[in-house]
């Protein structure tokens, strides 16, 4: 176990791992996204109340779910960076932030587009939408904070603290539909008890959620690999790796 963690902290090992993983993930993730999108757009039946507008669910829910999960990844990397001062954890934190921001942005935009035909408004200050907007600003804050420091160690420390403090927002997003009166419906997919969604819609949704998780991993690995190329451009190991 410790040897495993040690390997992940080693830039040369991680560079090799990321290069191989990206090569495998790229076709799998793109294939899964196209498959899931075609299934959801053209083959799944329409919703009996919302008609075809509900097809936005196949990108809206996966992007929101992974944007939230991604925040945990970033905050965990921040914790590792604060406690053990492992540089790869800083790199990971920095790589997750733009991916999380993009996914949160997609969740907000697709939500607005879905809201118009369904609720009659592009935007409402509903508890879940507002807390997702805060999530978006937290991701942007981490990106901006990294750029604001010249000293990388100080930047990583500040970003780690910000992302750890921001985790308080995540349970609020999850619970927002139960705590406040909201236009969003409570969770339909449950780990315990009956799932309130038909299999013909559930399966493409699960495919898309899995595809978005894969996409998250792919984007983070690509960012980390590129970051390593920039940071270690003078290092002998990187030159022999590329040579």
């Amino acid at each position, binding site marked *: 176990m410790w040897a495993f963690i040690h390997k992940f902290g080693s830039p040369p090992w991680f560079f090799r791992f990321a290069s191989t993983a990206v090569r495998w993930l790229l076709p799998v993730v793109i294939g899964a996204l196209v498959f899931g999108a075609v299934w959801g757009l053209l083959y799944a039946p329409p919703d009996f109340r919302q008609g075809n507008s509900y097809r*936005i669910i196949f990108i809206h829910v996966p992007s929101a779910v992974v944007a939230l999960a991604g925040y945990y990844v970033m905050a965990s990397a921040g914790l590792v960076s604060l406690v053990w001062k492992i540089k790869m954890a800083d790199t990971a934190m920095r790589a997750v932030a733009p991916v999380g921001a*993009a996914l949160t*942005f997609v969740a907000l935009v697709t939500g607005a587009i879905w809201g118009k035909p369904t609720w009659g408004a592009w935007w409402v200050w509903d508890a879940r939408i507002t807390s997702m907007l805060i999530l978006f600003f937290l991701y942007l804050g981490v990106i901006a904070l990294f750029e604001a420091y010249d000293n990388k160690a100080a930047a990583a420390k500040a970003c780690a603290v910000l992302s750890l403090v921001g985790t308080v927002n995540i349970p609020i997003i999850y619970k927002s539909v139960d705590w406040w009166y909201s236009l969003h419906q409570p969770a339909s997919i449950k780990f315990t008890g009956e799932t309130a969604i038909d299999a013909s819609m559930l399966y493409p949704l699960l495919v898309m959620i899995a595809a978005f998780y894969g996409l998250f991993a792919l984007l983070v690995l690509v*960012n980390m690999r*590129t970051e390593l*190329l920039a940071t270690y451009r003078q290092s002998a190991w990187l030159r022999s790796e590329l040579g």
Partner: protein
Amino acid sequence: MYFDSVNAALTMEGHGAFVWSAYVITFLVLAFMLVQPLLRGRRLARAIRAEQRRQAAELPAEGGGHAP
């Protein structure tokens, strides 16, 4: 397939503009997030290789000492 024609799939009984624009925006944003760091990585790798070749070309001249 649920829809009878390409036209039906595009209009989606009035919801087509919403659904298709949501998908197009999503895939454009995500494609940018993927392509931008990939291109930057390729540029960096090319610069590092070029630097390496330059140094390899200079090295024998330093050690040899055979002035032309």
